[in-house]
């Protein structure tokens, strides 16, 4: 088993049943994503990209086919085991941020650690550290209603990173942000990638997808294009100072997987 393969998908089929009729959303998708890839999954609505994202994110199970996430056969798992996999290996970033409105930034970021069974002291210590890394050290005790969209998405990113996931899965992360803030968030993704993080970004917008290193296009439940971007993709030259130690997350998760093998 090649430990550098994060996502390994073979002939994935997903059929939704709506009453008597069956609606195929994925008609046989095969895909491999290696460590430290930055992949954009594109496609118009109804192309199956949301279905594929849900499957990659272990939120749903395929009708047919095989999916291994960091070597673990996800397609055989029940809801309980999938929750463990999501907690351990995946960091989610959503279009609508999905922060708990009554909880502080600190509590929001620490949430995944609650379900990992980590003690409060250590949860807060680590949430502090990750918030500092996304430049929100002075917003730790703010609640979502007191923060801007860009800050909210950075909290969401911090939350996604706190468990040192193998995969960062972002679903239209800039969909609710203005263009300047979008650029900031995308720069953050590029920076995380550069620091070793594996990222899958789902978007309908080619301009957003242009930030990724590899672009996969879906149409009618099939992959119609899978191309590497040329070297024209500029590296982030001077990353924001606050982001400098984020790479640690990627490293630690890799170490953890190697330990497990």
């Amino acid at each position, binding site marked *: 088993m090649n430990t550098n393969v994060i996502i390994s998908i073979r002939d994935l089929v997903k059929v939704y049943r709506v009453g008597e009729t069956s609606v195929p959303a994925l008609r046989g998708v095969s895909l491999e994503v290696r460590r430290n890839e930055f992949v954009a999954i594109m496609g118009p609505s109804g192309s199956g990209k949301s279905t594929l994202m*849900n499957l990659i*994110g272990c*939120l*749903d199970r395929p009708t047919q086919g095989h999916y291994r996430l960091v070597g673990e056969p996800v397609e055989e798992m029940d*809801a*309980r085991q999938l*929750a*463990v996999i*999501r*907690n*351990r290996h995946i960091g*989610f970033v*959503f279009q609508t941020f*999905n922060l*708990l409105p*009554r*909880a502080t930034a600190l509590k929001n970021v620490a*949430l*995944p*650690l*609650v*379900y*990992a*069974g*980590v*003690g*409060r002291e*250590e*949860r807060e210590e*680590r949430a502090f*550290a990750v918030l500092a890394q996304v430049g929100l050290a002075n917003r730790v005790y703010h609640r979502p209603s007191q923060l801007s969209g860009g800050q909210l998405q950075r909290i969401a990113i911090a*939350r996604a990173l706190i*468990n*040192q996931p193998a995969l960062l899965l972002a679903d239209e992360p800039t969909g609710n942000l203005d263009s300047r803030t979008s650029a900031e968030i995308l720069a953050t993704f590029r920076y995380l990638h550069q*620091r*070793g993080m594996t990222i899958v970004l789902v978007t309908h917008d080619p301009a957003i997808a242009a930030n990724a290193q590899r672009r996969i296009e879906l149409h009618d439940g099939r992959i119609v294009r899978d191309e590497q971007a040329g070297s024209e993709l500029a590296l982030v030259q001077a990353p924001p100072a606050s982001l*400098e*130690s984020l*790479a*640690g*997350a*990627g*490293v*630690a998760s*890799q*170490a*953890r997987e*190697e*330990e*497990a093998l």
Partner: protein
Amino acid sequence: MKSSTSAPVEASAPAIRERETVWRPLRKQGTKLGSNLAGALEAVWSNRLRSLLTTLGIIIGIAAVIAVITLAQGANAYFTARFSQLGTTVLTVQPGSSSSGGASNGAGSSPSLSANDVQALVNLPHVLGVSPVILSGGVIAYSNTNWLTGVEGVSSAYQSLDNWQVVEGSWWSQSDEQIGLPVIVLGQTVVKNTFGLTGTNPIGQTVRWGRSLYRVVGVLAQRGSVGGNDQDDIAFVPYTNVMRLFSAKGPVPLDRILVQADSVNNVSQVQQEATLAMEQTHHIAPGGQNDFTVSTPQQLIDQENQSNAALEDLLIGLAAISLVVGGIGIMNIMLVSVTERTREIGLRAAVGAQPSDIRNQFLVEALILCTIGGCVAVPFGLGGAYLLTHQFGFPFVPSVLAILLAIGVAAVVGIGFGLYPAARASRLDPIVALRSE
């Protein structure tokens, strides 16, 4: 196994070696419950008014539970105190049967005790003393003062049977009793209200009860009151005198007969022999339906407590209905809460909450809601119990156990009625939940 050394990591990822953050291995602790508790308190607090209205049913139910238990304990304390004055060796013979299936409505209602029974009981082995009791009452008048009180016709043995101390004069003698002499022994309250004004020594004075005159031979020591009942508001006259007084309307029935055994060990033997002797004088075959009851002090206490059970049953019924209604209210508000927080549930599931974690979160919330309701109910329950015990003349005996029990009941209601909403939350599909508005 999450502990890792960083050496192989650095070897396999040389590009990102510098400036990495080295995380300590995760320390696992059972902290989900603490987190659930904090979250639940926050949820309850942020919907304060709704929480309060929701728990109203629980508050009423739990207050009723506390009131019932406190009232029952007050009643028990009252009857225990009242009958324990008789001493543990005194048996009580009452007319009527108590064997009619727990509901002893027959006891004391049929006039079946007579002076013959007293004679039959006096000569039994291990019997120290026997006294009939004829309950009566009326105005005791001295000079131009008078006082309405209870008057009991008893025998000379009654003094030791009921543990009365005589502070002045003495109880009448057996020979006085045999000839039915009109003598009277007065309680402190009666003395205070008839002789108190003039300060006359009552011994040897003549008082009037009804149309008859009585010579005061003794004054009783003060006993105080039990549960609001003044024990000293009483007067005793020889039962022989009372029987003669009322004999114009036929033989006078006795209200009860007290029988004192010579020791605690012989109480049950005396109880059996008294029953047999009474059966003989009443011409009842052994094992037949008796028209009298011989009870130990404990049986009397139990009997009295049983007659309070009806009121307690009513309150418990009220509590049960209120708790069910309250529980349904909790279930309803928890279902609303689950619907309102569908997205939150989806998010929690996405970041790794197990279905059981989601379920526990809402269970804890329902539990907290009900437990807070239970705590709020405590002062209301105690207040209600205070008013009720005063109404009935029972002592007010609040107990920590009753309060803890009531809060425990609230917690059980919370878990019981929170289970369905919590299970529903835990079964939500995270994808659908995340997409909901």
